């Protein structure tokens, strides 16, 4: 399922100060640059989340629920992870927690980033 990740993603920070640095004659060009930059960044986010979604379905959904929808209480509801809990996420995945095995040596750091992007796109708290 293709998801509208951009709709869930927080607005990009830093856009307005960048615009303020533009001179009047360059506003149009700057705006265009900003748009292209933002779009490519958003696209990269989308691609990472899509990769994360596939990884999730393969390695995580057995216990954490299809499409992150977890109603069991048996495993942690990953949508509860907050933006500042990246380290907690990585630690649990690499070292295991409770009944969860360690995925060290199975999931590469870049794949962990993709998973994190996917999970955060669906977090309860952005």
């Amino acid at each position, binding site marked *: 399922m293709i998801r509208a990740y951009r709709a869930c993603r927080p607005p990009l920070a830093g856009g307005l100060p960048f615009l303020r640095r533009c001179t009047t004659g360059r506003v149009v060009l700057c705006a265009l640059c900003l748009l292209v930059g933002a779009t490519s960044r958003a696209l990269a986010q989308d691609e990472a989340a899509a990769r994360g979604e596939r990884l999730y379905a393969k*390695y995580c959904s057995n216990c954490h629920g299809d499409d992150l929808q977890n*109603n069991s209480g*048996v495993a942690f509801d990953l949508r509860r992870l907050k933006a500042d809990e990246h380290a907690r996420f990585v630690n649990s995945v690499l070292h295991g927690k409770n009944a969860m095995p360690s995925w060290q040596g*199975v999931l590469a750091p870049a794949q962990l980033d993709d998973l994190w992007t996917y999970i955060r796109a669906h977090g309860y708290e952005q």
Partner: protein
Amino acid sequence: MKSVFYAALLVAAYPFSAFGQTASDLLNAADTPQSVLTYGISYSQQRFSPLTQINRQTVKRLVPAWSYSMNNNTGEESQPLVYNGVIYITSQNKTVAVDALTGKEIWNTPVDYPPDTTRVVCCGIVNRGAAIYEGKLFRTTLDARVIALDMKTGKQIWSVKSGDAKDGIAMTSAPLIADGVLITGMAGAEYGSRGYVEGYDPNDGKRLWRHYTVPRPGEPGADSWPDHAANASGGSSWTTGSFDPELDLVYWGIGNPAPWNALLRRGDDLYTNSILALRPKTGEMAWYFQTSPNDPFDHDNITSIILADLTINGKPAKVLLQAGRNGFYYVLDRKSGQLIAANPYVKVTWATGVDKETGKPEWTETTKKAIAYTEEIQTWPHITGGTNWYPSSFDPRTATAYVNTTDYGMKYQPDPIDEIKNLKPGDSYRAVKISPIFNADGMRGHLRAIDPLTGKSKWAIPFKSPNWAGTLVTAGGLVFTGELTGEFIAVDSDTGKILWQFQTPSGIIGQPVTWEHDGKQYVTVTSGTGGVYVLKTPDPNLAHVPPGGTLWTFKLIDE
């Protein structure tokens, strides 16, 4: 001196009573309803009890006698065994013996396994029960070991490694003792393992035989796979078979081919999705019957196999009954494996019927597409099946089967070939996109009273969440089962009316049993949510069902 004499007399009179049950106890399990000696309650796995004290009239007086904490949060699917006043029960992390009358723990033996083990556990971190024989208790472990414990002390007697997580193998099922051989299956088709059923010597754990369920080149069935089955995988055996001592045949349900995605495995893929009739002493196959050849839908044929004697066209027939995961209710001649009947018991759209002569399903166009193309299709039943691992029961007096069914379909789309061409054991062997199609009425499951020969329901009770528990039927006219929301229920076996219920602390995914002590009937069941439906399927009805395993025993309160 006198007491020593009496003690000696007792030991001589009951050589095994203190130590565990014998082969003849096992053969007579159906006629000794005081105990629960084997998975399925008897070798026929009818899960029928002749006990009548708890019945349609008295069930309103059924109350808890005691409960016991399993100290486990991952789900309780185990069937209790009851012998000589002791209940033996397993969990993924322990085996325990509990005083059947008081609920007091007698012994508790933890099960330890390497933390990486659960990487290849697809469908719930669970265990489904034990076998007991001549003073020993036998069980399997998630890291694919078969172990024997002393029934008296819980001390380990032997432990044998059967398979390895790196090959995608885990074990969750209860072993079966048949003709003096300990027989067990394995799980792992979702991780590309090659399935097998095994026989062990219960005395020392020596492996006597291994029967692979998918062939290699040159072996029977190899030509039903691409490349003569050089890399064939799947065919796990993750539930417990039944046994006909007279025919000397063990009947074992064999699971799905791997991966689910069928694009690269055209052919029947023998002996996946089959019932195998095996000789318990040697593992030799007498016959097989395949329910879903070339299956793309994970219609894993591991649902319970019940042995029964029916009257068909006025003649007695020794049959085998199975509510197939593919949605058809199968009746086979259990001597020959010949098909007698196969009719849908839930909504089925993947096949229009089953050919009586060949036993092969007649595929619909959507199934043909699902096997050959990556186009999305819709089909019924869902991969969960018309039913799943949780066993059904059978009342021989009325020839009625009591089955918890799942009643929904799915959107299904195979991933492209690139996703499956380089898979190796231990990888995820699904490679399909699936989303459920639920009914508009919001009911995802039923408890059904089914006529095996027609597949038709005599009655059906709907449930918002499908029941993921076994059923038990008694001569008291009651069917016991549990709900994922925790209610343990007793249903009138004739009408389908819920006569009694008790709210347990978590969802029920266990297997109820009944037994008798000093003329009093008891019912025992586990509570503790988990299992593949609860873990994977979004279900708002389960939002407030906490995990936590407990074992419960009920009895009638005095009038």
